[in-house]
């Protein structure tokens, strides 16, 4: 965009000092809160509540992590396992459901197909609070309170509409001729979908999978409402429960925050290219 050797002094100013000061400012703003919590999670109890607050722990310790992970009141090891299970199953099921639906919408002619696409678009914008009361009474009636199923099914309400919508776009971009020649060679339509279309749309499917995993991992309201036992809480619900205790343990809470953040942060760092391409593709075509 802006070349380094420009004769325009304004452009050189923007590409030089403004760029570096701006980058420094936004990076500090984005990372500051994480650095504070990381530092707090490594402090001793005495240092956490010391009068002039410190920014770098004087005697760094992993005690808060050990306590949070093994605590009986707020067992983060259990919360972590619950989050991992709920998010993974939601992710796999979401991919299966939305691959089938996305393929059908991309390839077949239906009465009211555009209406259906609009419904998927509108559903993405539904407020989660709308579903809390009716889903609670529904899961209660079905005896699913304090089960993984209730959380997984509820997560579909926000993962599936978006992933279907994203995958329709991907499948439409794959030429029909490839499947058609496979079908002429004797493959069934479903076989052609599995062997031709799915491998070709792997980047799109990967992006939707990360989306489904990360948004389930972050989900709070369903997880808090549809579970009552400590053993069934996810990380988000467990953190909220911990913060609601009569005395907030900032050290353990900071450790819990790091435990909840690191997995998605690592996923993001390694897979951000796929994720960002997938998420912005729909909007860019507009």
């Amino acid at each position: 965009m802006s070349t380094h050797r420009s004769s325009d002094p304004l452009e050189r100013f923007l590409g030089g000092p403004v760029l570096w000061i701006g980058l420094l400012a936004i990076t500090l703003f984005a990372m500051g809160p994480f650095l504070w919590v990381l530092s707090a999670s490594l402090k001793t109890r005495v240092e956490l509540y010391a009068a002039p607050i410190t920014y770098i722990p004087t005697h760094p310790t992993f005690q808060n992590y050990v306590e949070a992970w093994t605590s009986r009141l707020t067992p983060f090891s259990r919360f972590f396992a619950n989050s991992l299970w709920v998010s993974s199953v939601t992710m796999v099921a979401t991919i299966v459901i939305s691959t089938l639906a996305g393929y059908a919408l991309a390839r077949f002619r239906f009465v009211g197909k555009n209406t259906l696409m609009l419904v998927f678009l509108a559903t993405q914008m539904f407020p989660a609070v709308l579903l809390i009361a009716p889903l609670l009474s529904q899961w209660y009636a079905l005896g699913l309170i304090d089960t993984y199923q209730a959380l997984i099914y509820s997560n579909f309400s926000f993962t599936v509409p978006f992933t279907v919508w994203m995958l329709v776009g991907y499948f439409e971009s794959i030429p029909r001729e490839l499947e058609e020649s496979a079908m002429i060679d004797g493959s069934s339509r479903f076989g052609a979908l599995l062997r031709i279309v799915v491998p070709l749309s792997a980047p799109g499917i990967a992006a939707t999978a990360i989306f489904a995993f990360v948004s389930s991992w972050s989900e709070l309201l369903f997880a808090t409402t549809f579970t009552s036992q400590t053993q069934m809480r996810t990380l988000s619900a467990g953190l909220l429960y911990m913060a609601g205790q009569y005395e907030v343990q900032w050290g353990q809470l900071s450790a819990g925050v790091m435990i909840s953040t690191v997995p998605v942060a690592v996923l993001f760092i390694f897979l951000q290219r796929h994720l960002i391409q997938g998420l912005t593709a729909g909007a860019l075509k507009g």
Partner: protein
Amino acid sequence: MNQQATIAVPAPRALLSRGMRETLANYAYLLPVAICLGGTVLFPILKAMHMSLYHNVLIRPQDYRFIGLGNYVRMVEDPTFWLTLKNSFIWVFFSVSLQFLFGFAAALLLNAPFKGRAFFRTINLLPWIIPGVVVALVWEYLYQPNYGPINDILRRVGLMREPVAWLSNVDLAMPAVIFTNIWRGIPFFAIMILAGLQAIPDDIYEAATVDGASVTQRFWHVTLPMLRPIIVVATATRIIWTFNYADLIFVMTSGGPANATQITSTYTLLQAYTDLDFGYAATLSVILLVIMLVFTALYLKLTKGVESVAG
């Protein structure tokens, strides 16, 4: 009719049955999505509409009865509901406009060519992926009056003398939660606008430069017009999302102090959680849905139908 009769018509029976078979097979692909969204979205929404017509407070089951539009009348007469609408407007307006402004600036910075750009991009976009409850608790800690670093830094710099209880001060609580939401939302706009910037072909800039356009002229006459579609999409989805978003305020202040940060979506939650008034909570959520649908319809009209969004 006569003219049509001259056109050759294939045997209708065989074609119909084969077509029927194919159609049924095609609909089978949609069966899982129909069951899944029927059970977790469609049926619950109908159920919420049904619930909104009943007096339904969980701790008083003996009072459960049909009251028609009673809950809606109560809502119109409820001054707190109108206050939450006003708060929602403030929450959405300041959150989205400032997220957009800073997100745009961040995207321009992260689009410039410099060493280590990939690294800076990753760490600046990171807040986008962090769970809402984590964001809320981290900022609760930052705002904490005695052990929080914000008060400490402001006092060390000399901008403040006494520690301030940001989240329990009626005048400061809303700006404080909005500020947190801005921090959280900047990466979303940065990602969208960055993608838009990368999609602008380089030769347009080169042609503009050859024609003697300055850097500001290129921004106003090339960058902005080219980004218009993505700005519209990103802003509209963000407005809806922020209007519906309850996690942050719910965790940080529960809408307090004295409803200073109570937006309509957190008010709906509190009706269900604290007052266990599911009838009224359902009523408020139906109204949230109506507001959302009206806005989505306007947005789709603005972007001329789903095609331009769906591509």
